[in-house]
Every structure is written in C-alpha cells, then in structure tokens.
C-alpha cells in the first residue's frame, strides 16, 4: 500500500514537472508554471521522506542528518536567491546548477562504494538459485556504466558551472593557451577509454573479502585497481569541466550555462535509473532535453553554431581582426548637448546593454523615459535578444524598474522603427549594434542579427570607455559622423541627463 502511494506521489511529481515546464514557456502562465513544478517536487519529496523503503522493506534512517541537510540547504538557498541582485541573476543560476551537478556526482560516488561490495547471499536470494557470481557482476556492469556517466557528467557540470560563475562575477578571466583544444579532447578521450576499461575489468575483479562462497555468506569486493581508475576518472572530469569552460568568452556564457544545465539534468536522470526512481528520471531527462533545445535556440538567436561556441573560435578569430580595424576619431558630446538632442526629438529609441545592467541603471533609465514622455517625446526600448549576459536579461531588468511591457520592441520591430527615429540612446551595448555583423564578412560576428541603429538620424552612445565589447572587436559605429559618444557610468549619465532636462 505505502509503496503504491509512493509511486503515486512520483507520478504526480512527474506530471507537475511536465505541466510546469509547459506553463513556463508562455509569458502569461510562466509564474504559475514555476509554482506547479515546485508543488510537484514537494509532493515527490514528502512521498520519499515518509513512504520510501528499500527492497527488504526497511524504511529510511538517518533522518536527523537528512533534515539537517534539508534545512541548511533550504536556508542558504532562500537567502541567497532573495538577496541576489537582478544583474547577478546569471551567476546565481550557474551556481545553483553547479550545486545540482555536485549532488549528482556525490550520489554516484557513494553508490559506487555501495555497488562494489556485493553481498552474495542477498543477490542469490533475490535472483533465484541459478545465478552465478559472474552474471551477478554482469548485472552490475550496466548499473556501473550509468553510475559512471552520472559521476562524470555531474562533476563536469559542477566544475564547469563554478568556472562560469566566477567568469560572470568577474573573478576569473578568460584563459586560452596553445593546444588547449587538443588537451581538452585528450582528457575527454581519456575519460571514455578509462570508463570502458573499468567496465571491462569489473566482472573479473571481484574478490571474496570475507566468508565462504559455498556457504553463501560471502562479500565480494572490487579490486583496488578498479577503485584507483574510478578516482582517476573523477579527477579527469574535474579538470575537463574547468578546461572546457575556461576559454569560452563571457558573451557566450549563457549558452554554456544552458548546456551545463542540460548536463545536470542528464546526470539527475542517470541517478533516477540507478534507483529505478521515476520522478528523478522524468525530471532529469525532461530538463536534459529541454535544456538542449534551449541551448540551440540561444545559439540561433546569436546566429552561431553550438560547435562554434564550444570550441571558442570566437576568441581566437577576434585577435586576428583587431589590428587593422581602427579608423578615424570619435566625437564626444556633453551631457547638456545630449539632453537638448533628446528633449527636442520626436522619437527616441533606447538600446540597453550590459553597461546598463552593471551600473544598475534601470530605474534611472525609467526616470529619464518618464520625463521625456512628459515633454511629448515618444520613447521606446529596442531589445536585442542577447543583450546583456543572458537572453531576456534586459526584459527582466526593465520589468524590475516598472518599464511598461509594450514599450519593449523586439529586434525586428525595432529595426523597422529606426529610420523614423530622431535619436538613439545606446546604454552600454556594443556587439549587438555593431554594423560589422551586416557589412564586414571578415568580422567574427558577421551574420549575427543586430539592431540597425545607424539608420536613425542621430546616435548617442553611452559607454564607460572605448574598450571593445565581449566579442573583443572594434565597433565602426562609434566612428560614424552621426554618432556621438557620451562617456561615463550609465547610472550617473542618466541621472545627469534627467537633471539637465528638468531644468529646460
């Protein structure tokens, strides 16, 4: 009875995940979808805590440890998720994802220890009288394969996410060295070879550590060689995760996080297979598949292939282009002149980018927008799908500042509006407005859809300095005659503009 209730709770949990994910993909139902998924998880969790028992009918023990872990993890989770600034959201997601990967890897490691001790007696009773030691170990081989997949993917996801977290937070810099691609490939190949080798020796490397086999009271243990190989596999997975993310540029981080997110899903699904646990399988594999598709969608928004992103071709191609691209000089504009331009325009389009996010300038931006509207200027926002650090990042930020949803133009609509726009105000965006993507086939971002701001009558660019954006390439837009630069922190500049316009 209690077992069927447990299975029912897993079924409800799985349905919760599916419906939740479905609702999450529509703007109107997204928030409720998240709650539905959380509800599904809660039911599966309570079911496990109350009803779970193993094949011998024994209930769970160590409840003290379990609840302590749940409380500690829960408190840290809620506090960090509540405290985090909206601009730091991508790092946060990456960090949580890494924690999930670590959890999956740890489960695999403990289970490995468990799996390599075979109490012969138990297996003989379970599987009938005819089973031999060898086939006993054979059954284990399939499970050990899944377990190794779980450990490897979980570990790579953990260390990779931690590096991505550090990179987005700015504490880890991009590092590329010669032959990195070869070393990465060698590590991956090494992992695969060792996994196959370990699987092949597993059935033969069991030895009796105590008791008599004939008396069915023996325990089998795997040999030390196998344990050492297991440890080497983990070590390689740790290193691979680090080296895999290290050369990838910050602009591509969202894609990487999404990919690692899918990986953790697969690792969780493998954990479910180990325990025959349906809710873990559905939850994990669902996220694995959805995360994979999401990764591809994100790549499409940037008009890049996944292979291109992962091999870090961006960084290496950019270096070659850098030299010859500088031309002409930039024109600066003072805050008061910019204020005049904006205040006497009929139509202003604001292009927000990462600079706005870093400066936490979304509220100041909304202030300026309201002030200009009160002066009869038509103000709208042009949102590039990958502006900021994550797709949709700008929408989240501007929504936080109460910017009305229908003022946000998607790229196609915005591009149609630029020719009728008097002034474009670019706030810390760079690569997403780079005309080279349209007219310079040698540029590494050639072919990426961009906002065609150069079609507007005048462009004011707010940046902190002339430093290139994440793609590491110069932007010809800044040197065009109709472009004026307004250097400074986005928030301070916006506040100065607002003060200036108020005095007019």
């Amino acid at each position, binding site marked *: 009875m209690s077992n069927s209730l447990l299975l029912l709770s897993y079924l409800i949990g799985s349905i919760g995940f*599916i419906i939740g*994910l479905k609702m999450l993909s529509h703007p*109107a139902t997204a928030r409720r979808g998240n709650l539905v998924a959380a509800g599904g998880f809660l039911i599966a969790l309570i079911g496990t805590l109350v009803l779970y028992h193993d094949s011998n009918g024994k209930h769970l023990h160590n409840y003290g*440890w379990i609840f302590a872990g749940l409380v500690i993890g829960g408190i840290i*989770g809620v506090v960090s998720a509540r405290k985090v600034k909206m601009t730091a959201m991508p790092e946060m997601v990456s960090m949580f994802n890494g*924690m999930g990967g670590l959890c999956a890897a740890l489960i695999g490691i403990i*289970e490995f220890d468990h799996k390599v001790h075979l109490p012969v007696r138990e297996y003989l009773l379970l599987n009938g009288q005819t089973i031999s030691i060898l086939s006993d170990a054979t059954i284990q081989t399939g499970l050990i394969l899944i377990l190794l997949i779980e450990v490897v993917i979980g570990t790579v996801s953990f260390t990779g996410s931690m590096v991505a977290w550090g990179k987005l937070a700015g504490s880890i810099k991009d590092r590329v060295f010669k032959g990195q691609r070869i070393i990465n490939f060698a590590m991956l190949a090494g992992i695969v070879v060792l996994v196959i080798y370990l699987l092949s020796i597993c059935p033969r490397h069991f030895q009796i550590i105590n008791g008599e086999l004939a008396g069915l009271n023996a325990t089998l243990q795997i040999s030390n060689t196998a344990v050492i190989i297991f440890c080497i596999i983990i070590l390689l997975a740790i290193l691979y995760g680090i080296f895999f993310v290290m050369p990838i540029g910050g602009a591509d981080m969202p894609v990487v996080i999404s990919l690692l997110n899918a990986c953790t899903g697969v690792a969780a699904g493998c954990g479910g297979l180990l325990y025959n646990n349906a809710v873990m399988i559905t939850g994990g594999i669902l996220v694995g598949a*959805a995360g994979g*598709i999401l990764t591809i969608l994100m790549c499409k928004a940037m008009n890049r292939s996944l292979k291109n992103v992962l091999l870090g071709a961006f960084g290496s191609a950019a270096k070659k282009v850098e030299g010859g691209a500088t031309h002409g000089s930039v024109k600066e504009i003072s805050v008061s002149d910019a204020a005049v331009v904006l205040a006497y325009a009929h139509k202003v389009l604001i292009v927000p980018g990462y600079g706005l996010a870093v400066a936490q300038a979304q509220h100041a931006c909304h202030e300026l927008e309201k002030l200009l509207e009160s002066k009869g200027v038509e103000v709208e926002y042009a949102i590039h799908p990958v502006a900021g650090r994550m797709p*949709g990042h700008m929408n989240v930020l501007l929504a936080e500042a109460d910017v009305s949803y229908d003022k946000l133009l998607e790229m196609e609509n915005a591009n149609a509006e630029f020719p009728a726009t008097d002034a474009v105000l670019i706030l810390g965006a760079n690569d997403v407005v780079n005309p080279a993507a349209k007219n310079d086939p040698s540029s590494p971002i050639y072919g990426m859809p961009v906002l065609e701001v150069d079609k507007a009558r005048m462009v004011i660019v707010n940046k902190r300095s002339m430093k290139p954006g994440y793609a590491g390439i110069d932007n010809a837009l800044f040197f065009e005659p109709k472009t004026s630069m307004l250097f400074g922190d986005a928030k301070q500049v916006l506040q100065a503009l607002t003060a200036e316009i108020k005095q007019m």
Partner: protein
Amino acid sequence: MQILISFFQQNINMIYIIVLSIFLGIEVISRVPSVLHTPLMSGANAIHGVVVIGAIIIMGTVEPGNVPAIILGFIAVIVGTLNVIGGYVVTDRMLEMFSKKKRKE
C-alpha cells in the same frame, strides 16, 4: 553484448520513460519567446534539483557506521536542496516582475 541485452530487458520500462521524456522536453520548449529564455533556464535548473531525492534515499539507506558515506551524503543533501529551493525562488523572483507588468495593463 549479453550485458547490453540483459540490461535492456531489465530496464525496458525506464527506457520507455526516458525516450518519451526526451520527446516531451523538446516538444514543450520548441516555441518559446526569447523574453522567457532566462526564466525558463532558471526554472529547468530548479526542476533537475529533483536529484536531491536520490541524495535523501542514499542518506537514508547508508549504514550508520559508514562515516565517509554519511558525510558525502550530507553534503549531497545540502547542495541538492540549495539547487532546488534556490532555483524555484530565483525563478519566481524573475517572473514576479513580468506578472507585475501584466496586472497594471
């Protein structure tokens, strides 16, 4: 080969679940506006936190004397919970901002 066949036979139900889940995951996500990419990634991130259930099971079945396993399992429960709770709260915070807009319109 024999290993694969016996494994396949034993786990056929689970393999069905996996295959159907893959198609479902792809189908559900395929037409999503780019505005929702970030919250969706965050929500999916919370869902795979279900791995914590595996950590709880392993924690609850480990022999009391096995100290290394208890320590590792304890860490697994903590980080798994962190993933799941933090993930849902962060996603909710992101989506709260969207729904605030919706009501005012």
